[in-house]
């Protein structure tokens, strides 16, 4: 089988889902089911005594592994504390490390991210850092012991697709840990492109949860990731400037 393997753990789905943006837990549940995902992110926030239902129940019912993130953290210190709280609350040492530079762009802060990654790896976490499409930083994070690298295609929630496919290819070429395209996916062709570029998996949320029909878009993403993976493995034909006849003109 063509499994995705992260830190020794196997996943048959290469689509990792986020849970942000869904209008209700019911809609989220249907979308997660349609996506076929086996690994899904959650955020850590102050407990709201009035909240009804829990995203954790949805994931447990679907037997989906929970991947806590550090969304909302602006410094390495905040991210390390949030990671430790997530480990305590959820009983997992897996972590999507996300340290944001500013509210407007939500772009990841490379300095704080690297600092937090080193501290969390030393503390026994399986760290999956969300980063810009920076091959040098990806390499440094892998050397620091991260279990995967998660470069963005475009800013979170922007739906702009993969703005710098060349950099994603460079990251893929150099990496020996899984490369997970995270953020920026707008529609199915973006997810297929990520896989064709050689990414090992795609993480997306908004493109599904804010689609007019989240369950349909989730199914589309599932198909796109699978198709893109197959195309990558098949090996595409080279691009040519001019036509090349598929049948010879003379025998």
């Amino acid at each position, binding site marked *: 089988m063509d499994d995705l393997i992260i830190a020794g753990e196997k996943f048959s789905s290469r689509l990792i889902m986020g849970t942000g943006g869904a209008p209700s837990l019911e809609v*989220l549940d249907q979308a997660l089911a349609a996506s076929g995902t086996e690994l899904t992110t959650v*955020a*850590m926030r102050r*407990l709201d005594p009035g909240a009804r239902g829990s995203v*954790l129940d949805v994931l447990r019912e679907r037997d989906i592994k929970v991947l806590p993130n550090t969304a909302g953290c602006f410094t390495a210190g905040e991210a390390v504390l*949030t990671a430790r709280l997530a480990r305590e609350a*959820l009983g997992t040492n897996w972590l999507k490390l996300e340290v944001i530079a500013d509210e407007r762009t939500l772009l990841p802060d490379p300095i704080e991210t690297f600092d937090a990654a080193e501290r969390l790896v030393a503390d026994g976490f399986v760290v999956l850092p969300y980063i810009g499409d920076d091959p040098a930083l990806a390499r440094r994070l892998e050397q620091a012991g991260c279990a995967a690298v998660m470069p963005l295609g475009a800013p979170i929630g922007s739906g702009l697709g993969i703005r710098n496919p060349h950099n994603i290819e460079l990251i893929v070429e150099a990496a020996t840990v899984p490369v997970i395209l995270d953020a920026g996916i707008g529609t199915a062709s973006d997810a297929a492109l990520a896989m064709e570029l050689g990414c090992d998996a795609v993480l997306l*949320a908004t493109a599904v949860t804010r689609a007019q029909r989240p369950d349909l878009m989730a199914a589309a993403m599932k198909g796109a990731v699978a198709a893109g993976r197959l195309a990558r493995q098949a090996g595409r034909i080279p691009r040519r400037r001019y036509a090349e006849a598929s049948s010879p003109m003379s025998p």
Partner: protein
Amino acid sequence: MVRAGKISGNFMIISINGAAHEVADGMTVAQAVRTLTAATTGVAVALNDEVVTRGAWETTALSDRDRVEVLTAVQGG
């Protein structure tokens, strides 16, 4: 200001998830958590930015001006 737990004798001011509470001296982390939820799983506590593990909630007493954060997983990312 919210009064939580029995007030007898001395009391202190603590913060639970950003809200000030006047509570009895000797209140534990476990009691502070119970002001928000009866749940003991899926929840984690930081006391002044340090994690208090589940096993230590009952035995960790709070002090005046302590900041208790009670977190859980929500939709996000």
